[in-house]
């Protein structure tokens, strides 16, 4: 048992590293998105700042810091300032329970590769991410502008509708794993069946659930083809129309941090977490699980961007009908079938 001081210090160091890594990842997923969408549309994307435009996120960050921040007089100031902060705090918090690998020993401290290992991690993530809707709804309402209000309302309605399918799609995984702990869920996906197919949930019974999760997650994070709240061509920018400079950047950071959380969760729940082929020297065996985890997260993020470059936007009535008339029954059917199959097997 370690002492209280070292416990706090270790947690603090891990928090600082996690925030730093996450914000860098957020900045570079913006870069990746611009680059990939650029190439999909036969353009180059950012090229001017640094090699391959790699310093572009840094330049954007400095620009955000030095931009004039307009707080219009017609807004409800307290909520107007609180909303972007709430958004980004909730978006970042969910990363604190996500494990990226097994336990390691660094400098004599035996620690899990995550900020903390709790046995209800999945519940915490669901709770925290669903709080994100407050940031959006408050921003839309407190801006006191028509576009913002409409964008905020649309975003709230969309996020709460898809949250139900998102929650239901996870229940199949929970039945298979029998635990809320993300570590246990990953462990339940180890090994192979039929000799070569990995026992990841996406291959092992939860394929439908994965696609329900995928679509709900896209809608939860307000991404194409479900980016109705932002809908540049009709709502300008939706709930953040009246925001500028650093406060706008915070909504942006929140959106991309949410994308990363969703990608991590998809990896942990459906794509087998850090499981993958492991061989070689001792240090390689230590590094490879983390590499597999990050590679899967990257693939998921790439899928996000690919879809953004491919699909057009839904109409709002189609969006709501899709959530309530298609995804919800599908998720319930998947849950019932999973329950029946697991019960018959045991």
């Amino acid at each position: 048992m370690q002492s209280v001081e070292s416990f706090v210090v270790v947690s603090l160091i891990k928090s600082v590293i996690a925030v730093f890594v996450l914000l860098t990842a957020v900045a570079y997923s913006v870069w990746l998105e611009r680059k990939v969408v650029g190439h999909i549309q036969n353009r180059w994307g950012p090229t001017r700042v640094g090699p391959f435009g790699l310093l572009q996120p840094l330049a954007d960050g400095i620009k955000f810091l030095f931009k004039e921040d307009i707080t219009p007089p017609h807004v409800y100031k307290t909520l107007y300032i609180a909303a972007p902060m709430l958004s980004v705090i909730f978006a970042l918090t969910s990363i604190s329970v996500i494990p990226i690998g097994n336990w390691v020993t660094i400098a004599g401290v035996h620690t899990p590769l995550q900020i903390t290992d709790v046995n209800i991690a999945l519940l915490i993530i669901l709770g925290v991410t669903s709080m994100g809707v407050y940031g959006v709804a408050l921003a839309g309402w407190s801006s006191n502008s028509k576009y913002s209000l409409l964008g905020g309302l649309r975003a709230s309605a969309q996020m709460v509708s898809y949250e139900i399918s998102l929650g239901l799609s996870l229940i199949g995984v929970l039945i298979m794993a029998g635990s809320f702990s993300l570590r246990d869920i990953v462990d339940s996906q180890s090994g192979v069946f039929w000799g070569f197919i990995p026992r990841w949930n996406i291959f092992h019974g939860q394929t439908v659930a994965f696609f329900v999760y995928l679509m709900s997650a896209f809608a939860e994070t307000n991404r194409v083809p479900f980016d109705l709240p932002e809908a540049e061509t009709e709502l300008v920018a939706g709930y953040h129309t009246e925001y500028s400079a650093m406060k706008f950047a915070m909504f942006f950071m929140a959106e991309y941090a949410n994308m990363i959380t969703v990608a991590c969760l998809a990896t942990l729940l459906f794509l087998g977490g850090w499981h993958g082929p492991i061989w070689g020297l001792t240090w390689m065996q230590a590094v490879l699980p983390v590499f597999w985890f990050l590679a899967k997260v990257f693939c998921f993020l790439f899928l996000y961007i690919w879809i953004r470059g491919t699909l057009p936007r839904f109409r709002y009535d189609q969006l709501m009908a899709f959530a309530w008339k298609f995804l919800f029954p599908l998720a319930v059917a998947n849950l019932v079938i999973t329950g029946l199959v697991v019960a018959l097997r045991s």
Partner: protein
Amino acid sequence: MPQNYVPIFIFIAFIAILIPVTLLAAKLVRPDNPHKAKLMPYECGIDPVDSARGRYTVRFYIVAILFVVFDVETIFLFPWAVKFKAFGLFGLVEMLIFLAILVVGYIWIWKKGALEWV
């Protein structure tokens, strides 16, 4: 273990300090030249007509109510799913009855047209 939850609060405390500090730092370095046109609510350059607190469709309220009903159901399913193997056949049958009642309600809502967005 309860002490495992402490790092989450340390993490939240850290970002809850970091984010306002970033905003304050931006306040120190950025220019500040307000102008009447800049401060108008954004409506594509046209002077705003009417208040922004207009009426909006009742559909949003219906979605909110439906969300409460079905989300409570989802939350109810979570602990059941985790203890699925411990409950055995009894738990499965019990939950199938619960879901059947729910599906009847769902079909009724659909027939009533609450899911239409017109």
